[in-house]
């Protein structure tokens, strides 16, 4: 399955980003072929609606799951509409989270926070 993780950087030693919508990149990783790549998040600097736009990017990458520490309600609604499951990351290490995901040890993210409706 392909999974997406918000990350701080597009380098191999990158960490999980604490924000989903405003993460600079997403790591798109295929758990079967063990291949991965970085997808730039064009929503990172959006004053408003970043979660929605970021979620669209993730959905368009055709992943089956999202691993993230936090997720807003709008982004979660997009994920639900696309039938993508959201899992809660355990720490900021990519390796730990991918291993935990493969072993079925990640829990679904349930504490979806209300959106930070920005803008004017």
């Amino acid at each position, binding site marked *: 399955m392909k999974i997406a993780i918000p990350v701080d950087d597009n380098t191999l030693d990158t960490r999980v980003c604490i924000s989903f919508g405003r993460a600079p990149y997403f790591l798109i990783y295929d758990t079967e072929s063990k291949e991965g790549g970085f997808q730039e998040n064009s929503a990172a600097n959006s004053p408003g609606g970043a979660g929605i736009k970021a979620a669209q990017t993730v959905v368009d990458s055709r992943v089956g799951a999202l691993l993230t520490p936090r997720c807003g309600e709008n982004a979660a609604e997009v994920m639900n509409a696309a039938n993508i499951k959201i899992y809660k990351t355990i720490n900021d290490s990519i390796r730990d989270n991918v291993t935990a995901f493969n072993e079925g040890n990640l829990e679904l993210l349930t504490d979806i926070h209300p959106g930070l409706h*920005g803008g004017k």
Partner: protein
Amino acid sequence: MRIAVLSGKGGTGKTLVSVNLAAVAGQSSYIDCDVEEPNGYLFFKPERVESEEISIRIPLVDETLCNGCRICVEFCKFNALAYINDKLLIFDEVCHSCRGCVLFCPEKALGERNKVIGSIEKGVSENVAVATGILNIGEASGIPIIKKLLHDMPPGSSFIDCPPGSACIVMESIKDADYCILVAEPTLFGVHNLNMVHELVELFGKPHGVLLNKCLEGENPAEKYCLDKGIKILGRISFDRELGTINSDARIAVRENAKYRDLFASLLRVVSEEVQRETALDS
């Protein structure tokens, strides 16, 4: 004569001043534009209240016409749209009602519908017409409510209780005002925020003066600021526990006590003279 009452920060006494001025002015109206935290109605306890819902226009998709071209999704600068599983998702509370998606949809698949974001309550309290704008919890912008409040403003003397700060919502509230009263506290914080709101009224070219509230013995940094900048000081309200108690109980001081009636009546006289002088200068 339309008087806007504003201050750079909350808690300086905006509501105290606008409520009591309206109450002492006789036939007048009080308009609460602080739609996030409206408090004036707690004082006036208006009767014969009529409520009106305020809506904005947001897009509505006709799924039979949408072909998934995503032009609307790409266009929306607010990221209020997503196209997922062959369906357009619309996020109402992110939408700014710019109509761009409706205009540029090549299939004419987007129309509009109304969405309620808050309400306006109008009532009377003795001879004051009280209008309160209320933004529903979770809505981003109260500007459409303020526009409607000011659009419906009756002729005659009106006192506009503005939101705190100097953001765009305050600009909207003072747009139609003939005169602005800046309420300031005698603290360093008060001066810093007075400076911001002073810049705002200067930018809009609004005639204005400062009312010094909660004055204590000793140095008043806000007063010093006004003297340095040559800003008209409309009056001083001394800190007093009796006024503090009346006000914190949401009672109207001028309706209870002759001392405060005189205080606000003379403030009203000063403001009226200022407004007349400014109008004379204008014509």
